[in-house]
């Protein structure tokens, strides 16, 4: 066991954990956050995605030992109903999610992609989002929402 200090959604936190425990369990179980979600525990789906120092990471496989001193942002820290990230606003406008359990993967990954490449083409977006899962099949609406957000970011 060791104590890990880091920042989550602008709050400084500390968690006692084994170094190999994935960040996801600290966020959910120790810090009581409702996001992100456990989808596979294998970095195959994206439901647990958060930003770590601005990079989209799969928190279900990221060990605590790699998190010390880092800045973690969850979807709840990306934007709020009052101050939404353009992607969140676009998701609401397009009514994208169905079950919604996959949402962290798509929104957090797309947010990181658009930060680097706000004008990403359809092909670049599909490439950057490869591997993320959405079981309800909302992919077409996801792309619509990202393109809507791009008009806000442009």
């Amino acid at each position, binding site marked *: 066991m060791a104590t890990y200090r880091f920042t989550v959604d602008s709050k400084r936190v500390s968690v006692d954990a084994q170094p190999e425990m994935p960040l996801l369990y600290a966020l959910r179980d120790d810090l009581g956050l409702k996001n992100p*979600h456990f989808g596979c525990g294998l970095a195959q*789906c994206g439901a647990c995605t958060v930003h770590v120092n601005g990079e989209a990471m799969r928190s279900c496989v990221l060990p605590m030992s790699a998190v010390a001193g880092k800045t973690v942002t969850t979807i*709840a820290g990306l934007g709020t*109903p009052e101050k939404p990230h353009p992607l969140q606003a676009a998701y609401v406008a397009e*009514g994208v999610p169905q*079950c*919604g*359990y996959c949402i962290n993967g798509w929104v957090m990954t797309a947010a990181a992609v658009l930060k680097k490449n706000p004008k990403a083409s359809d092909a670049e977006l599909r490439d950057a989002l490869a591997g993320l899962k959405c079981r309800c099949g909302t992919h077409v609406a*996801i792309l619509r929402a990202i393109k809507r957000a791009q008009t806000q970011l442009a």
Partner: protein
Amino acid sequence: MDRREFLKTSGALVVSFSLPPIEALAQGAGKPALVPTELDSWIAILPDGRVNAFFGKMDMGQGLDVAVAQIVAEELDVGFHKVDVVMGDTLTSCNQGGASGSTGVSNGARLMRRAAAEARRVLVERAAEKLGVPAAELKVADGVITAGEKKTSYSELVGGRYFHHQVEWNKQVGNPMDIKVPAKPKQPSDYKVVGKPLPRRDVAWKVYGTDGFVTDVRRPGMLHARVLRPPRVACKVRSIDEASIKGIRGARVIRDKDFVAVVAPKEWDAVRAAQTLKVDWEPMATPFPPMDQLYEHIRAAQVVKRADEVKKGDVNAALSAPGVKLVQAEYEWPFQSHASMGPACAVAEIKDGACTVWTGSQKPHFVRDGVSRLLGLPEDKVRAIWIAGPGSYGRNDAGDAAMDAAFLARATGKPVRVQGMRADGTAWDPKGPACVHRARAAIDATGKVVAYEFVSKGFSRQHIATNESQPADSLIGQTLGVPPKPNQIFGTPAESYGFENKLLGWETIPQFVDHCSPLRTSHFRDPVGPEIHFGSEQFIDELARAADEDPVAFRLRYLTEPRHAAVVKAVAEKSGWNSLGKGKGIAFAERNGTAVAVVAQVEVDRASGRVWARKLWVAHDCGLIINPEILRTTIEGNVVQGLSRTLFEEVRFDRDSVTSVDWTSYPILDIADAPESIDVTLIDRPEVAPSGAGEPTIRVIPAAVANAFFDATGVRLRRAPLSPERVKAALAKA
């Protein structure tokens, strides 16, 4: 979501059920019993004039609650935004069957419409009495009742109190539950709210992470649990080495007969304990055939039950008539997994002899019934509360999680949260049944189809029931020794082709393993719909080509229902069928009153075997449209999930285990393969009562794609999925 309040206590989120106003009225003092005969079981007017509609089905992320709110607002004459739909809690709603068979609007909301119309009638009657004005002279606008200067309101008349008014119940429970009322619902021509593209209500909290899923329910003192499923098919535990998890903080084993679980105060410790615990299972010797012999197995298997659902004329005679051209083909569909976005989760707590279960199951009333039977508690001592889970497309792993949680809460005396690991949602959920479809037809010298036969043979779609009301239908029940009682049922194509000699039938075969089977079969979105129509609508295409006729013209020649022909015409027109380039395919089907036709245009990469359904056109007729925008996105989801099942999904197994355990071994559609466009034509028929939309479109996708693949390559793929390996192999052979 405002019915749940999340309180922050000692750093962890705790769900509090301190009953905000909605529930206070739903279960307050003096409330009549929660029975379908009480109007108060369906509608409540709050002191501020807001309306609660207590709905006994639930929305699975396709906006059903919005449709219900629109219908209730319409019939009651109140603003849409004043109506809250309260659903999924056995304490506040009657058992309308949960999410089931795309009946949310057709059955579920039909009842709500009647209840709302009756509430309005009663309120107007009471207003007439109060104001001393005949009811016919009263006007209602947004819950305010006026006659000239005289005025009262719903909230004044009954706000915060109960109607104490009886309605007539048809004595049915589940999907067919209905009521009869003297009130006459409005005519569609008078609709102001129904038909409007009003927005979803669950999007914002999901996008901002401001409310929780069932996975986010926390109770004070809660333990985390993982249930152990055997790595190889096994129904018996020989022994458990409890010392193997000795070093893991607070972890312990809970075992009863062949049910094994671990619990720990911290979730990560429960996960580690589940991964570490040494269990000696008694494996079964080769319960499954080699996977590459699955379809031979089905063909050769003994028939448990056969039903000829459509029988017209004498097919055999017509097939053997002299001079006819015989066309025959067989189609094969694999086991498929719900593979919900996350493995199922449930939380249960037992206090003062009463059990509360928080579940993502789409049928919480049946969870209540199942838990009550499992624990031997009276029904009124069990409360099941649905909270959005990680996806639900039928009988997935959610029912098992709910039963497991309840059992573990009793075994430990503490609130217990169960969530599976990935393999529990992929390898261990109930599966869509594998099947083979045999089709034969005869075409006479004039090119007319004179005989048509389509018979499906496969595993029953209800080896375990469609809901969790019986412990026999859950893994825990089976590990505790309750044998399942499979229902033998499959299905037939749903169409109106007017072939003069016609036989549509099905045959079911025995399960590989009676109980504790990872290949047990049950309902998966549009049960046996994609499976059957993958065959039947490809066969129609094969017949069209054998008769040297265009597939659209051929369908139009034989479809006898005008609404069926109308969707085929509409989709052909919208897609520009006649001028579309190569790689186009069409398919049509009906589903419980909804007609849908799809045109797909595919691109085939011969080198990689990739099939990309680049463009799709859908024409959809489900009668009266309640909300066109939500209907459109629901159809889109059907299309994409249908593409995934057509192109990628196949549960893999070896002789003694399911080897599809994650997203690598059970691939689904990736965004690279998402269509470029899905064009949806909605045919609104206000004069026709609404039918379902949650499933119909998915059944036509497989054949539309396979027909398009044939059009692109000249090769028929009669075995699903049309995966890259299979496509490459088929093209190499051609």
